């Protein structure tokens, strides 16, 4: 019940914040337009989505084989592989690496998986200084907040709010609301930190099994700094990020950047294949990859839901979700918001805790239409709703099946079933409704707060059709 209440509270908070509404409305409209401009040819887009979907389906289908191959080839490349089943394990692994190297100061590139395991908080508690270097993440860290979007973490902030977050912490710089100027100032701050950092942490967009290559997509160059300037580079990623071949990368990269930010290509694309080799003058001296499960292998076992793992984290479903546009990311209360969030998070953390999230969907289908790897998000969300109240999943692969079944609601559906599965009962019900105006329910939740209550017509269509002489058999 706690969760329901707090979700409700977060929704209330989001809906009553006009500024937030305006910020998200304009940001999402901008992102949708930019994406649309990148895909002028619908046939081509359909084809590209098909190709990317096939690549990802293929990778997910042979996940364990590919992971073994990935480990083999990474080790050949002198990249040490660590397996973490839980968030705590992953955090401990990262901490141990840093501790062994006596690393005190860490720079970090944008990574949703490290948000998922709350690495910053963990390392902070251990006395390690960790700095986000992606501009958006940097601002979110300054403001002591969480990202509100998986690609654009500070998208909930407008120009003024960004300036405030920055100058509250760096009063020594002359105040401006010019974002370009602020960016230059942040750059100055970050340069020093890159130079002095003992270690760099990054995420991974694609891990290529065939060659043991880690791919990193970014725009600011901070990712490259984090992965090359400090003496140690630790990459952290979910096990589902693996792909089979190097030739899988071009189509995926192409559709990722176009779908995510409407860019034909990002400013930086890093392909990391080893630490510094003998005779080379730069690059980290040692490299690690932490492969995180954290519920993913359980999703993988579930044939109905496995497609969740195809996601390449472009955020396009989020940008096109009308509910996300209303709420912004924080109201979801989870690391991943929007359609992918309400699909992934209840599977990872259980329906008991997060089942309510699946109600944040009108089934409009916009997410499924734009997903570059064709994840049938509406179908998966619908399936989760059914798990929450009925538990069709005999293997109980998702925690909390049936946990959201409420006596009153299930009774209402039982009555509904009785009425609508029997033409005879329905005909009586229909007469009562139309003649006595029986079902103009005054208490349809909050329907009446925003709309008039619908009133049944005096005659049903069945009656009108009869009167007009249409056959009924």
């Amino acid at each position: 019940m706690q969760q329901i209440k707090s979700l409700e509270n977060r929704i209330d908070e989001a809906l009553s914040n006009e500024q937030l509404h305006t910020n998200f409305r304009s940001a999402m409209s901008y992102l949708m337009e930019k994406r649309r401009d990148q895909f002028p040819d619908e046939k081509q887009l359909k084809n590209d989505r098909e190709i990317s979907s096939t690549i990802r389906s293929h990778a997910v289908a042979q996940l364990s084989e590919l992971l073994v191959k990935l480990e083999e080839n990474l080790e050949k490349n002198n990249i040490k592989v660590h397996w973490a089943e839980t968030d705590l394990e992953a955090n401990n692994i990262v901490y141990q690496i840093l501790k062994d190297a006596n690393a005190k100061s860490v720079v970090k590139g944008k990574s949703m998986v490290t948000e998922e395991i709350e690495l910053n908080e963990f390392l902070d508690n251990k006395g390690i200084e960790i700095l986000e270097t992606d501009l958006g993440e940097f601002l979110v860290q300054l403001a002591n907040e969480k990202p509100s979007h998986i690609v654009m973490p500070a998208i909930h902030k407008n120009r003024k709010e960004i300036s405030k977050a920055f100058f509250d912490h760096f009063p020594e710089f002359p105040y401006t609301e010019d974002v370009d100027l602020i960016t230059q100032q942040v750059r100055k701050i970050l340069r020093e930190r890159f130079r002095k950092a003992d270690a760099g942490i990054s995420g991974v967009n694609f891990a290529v099994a065939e060659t043991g290559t880690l791919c990193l997509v970014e725009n600011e160059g901070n990712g490259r700094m984090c992965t090359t300037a400090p003496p140690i580079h630790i990459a952290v990623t979910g096990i589902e990020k693996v792909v089979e071949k190097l030739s899988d990368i071009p189509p995926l990269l192409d559709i990722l950047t176009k779908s995510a930010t409407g860019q034909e290509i990002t400013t930086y694309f890093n392909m990391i294949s080893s630490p510094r080799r003998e005779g080379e003058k730069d690059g980290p001296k040692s490299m690690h990859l932490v492969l995180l499960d954290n519920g993913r292998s359980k999703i993988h076992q579930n044939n109905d839901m496995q497609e969740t793992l195809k996601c390449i984290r472009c955020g396009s479903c989020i940008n096109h979700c009308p509910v996300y546009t209303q709420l912004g990311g924080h109201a979801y209360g989870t690391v991943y918001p929007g359609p992918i969030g309400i699909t992934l998070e209840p599977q990872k953390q259980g329906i008991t805790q997060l089942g309510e999230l699946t109600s944040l969907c009108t089934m409009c289908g916009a997410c499924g239409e734009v997903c570059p790897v064709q994840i049938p998000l509406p179908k998966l969300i619908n399936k989760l709703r059914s798990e929450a109240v009925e538990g069709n999943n005999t293997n109980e692969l998702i925690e909390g099946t049936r946990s959201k079944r409420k006596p009153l609601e299930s009774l209402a559906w039982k009555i509904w079933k009785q009425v609508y599965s029997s033409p005879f009962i329905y005909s009586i019900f229909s007469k009562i409704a139309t003649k006595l105006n029986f079902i103009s329910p005054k208490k349809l939740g909050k329907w009446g707060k925003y709309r008039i209550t619908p009133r049944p017509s005096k005659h049903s269509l069945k009656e009108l059709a009869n009167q007009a002489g249409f056959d009924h058999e």
Partner: protein
Amino acid sequence: MGTCLVDLFYPKAGLAGMQLLKNAGVKVIYPGKQTCCAQPSFNSGYRKEALPVARSLMKCFPKDIPIVIPSGSCAGMIKYHWSELFEGESDIEKALSVAERVYELTEFLVDKLNVELTDLGEPTKIAIHTSCSCRNEMKVADRIESLVSQLSKVEVLEQERKPECCGFGGTFAIKQGDISGSMVKDKTDILKATNASCVVSQDCGCLMNIGGALEKQNSKLKTQHIAQFLWDRTNAAN
């Protein structure tokens, strides 16, 4: 087929749809025992309750003739989700045969009948709300545009963010009432800004939501189902 919402709340839209079909030379049968496609409970997670309702509807359409529905959302439910609903059931073949024969009304009027419309109405300005199910699922959102474009005295005004959901979503409007309310406010704001006198749509769910909100706001902007709009403007007796 009529749909449960049309049967009780928008029967004139259903009748207009049948008259449009009849006018185009089609013999129309309205099976009297039909109730609902089962979408409300299916989308709420109650599939066990959805199944007998869908089955009861399935039995109304045994003949191998097209099933035309004045709603993208009900058509989409049958066409694309009955396969999942009936999975593992002994009568899945029957369910699939119904699914294969389903058409949304404007889709049928345009694709199968190639209807030609003559506008007999007064000059008017309208906005078209394309329902999510017609656009994303059935892929027939453009059929309403093509039908309306045949009407010489109707000017279609374009609104911003046309593809965005109106916030109905069936039980979503009840379960997440405030989000839904905020969505329909955004939608009605943008529709009112067009200065159209009427909003037409292929789906009664959207119309109940948008129309209900407009009425609550005391707006002069009316809403009408496309079938009734077309029938009113093209039928000489009107």
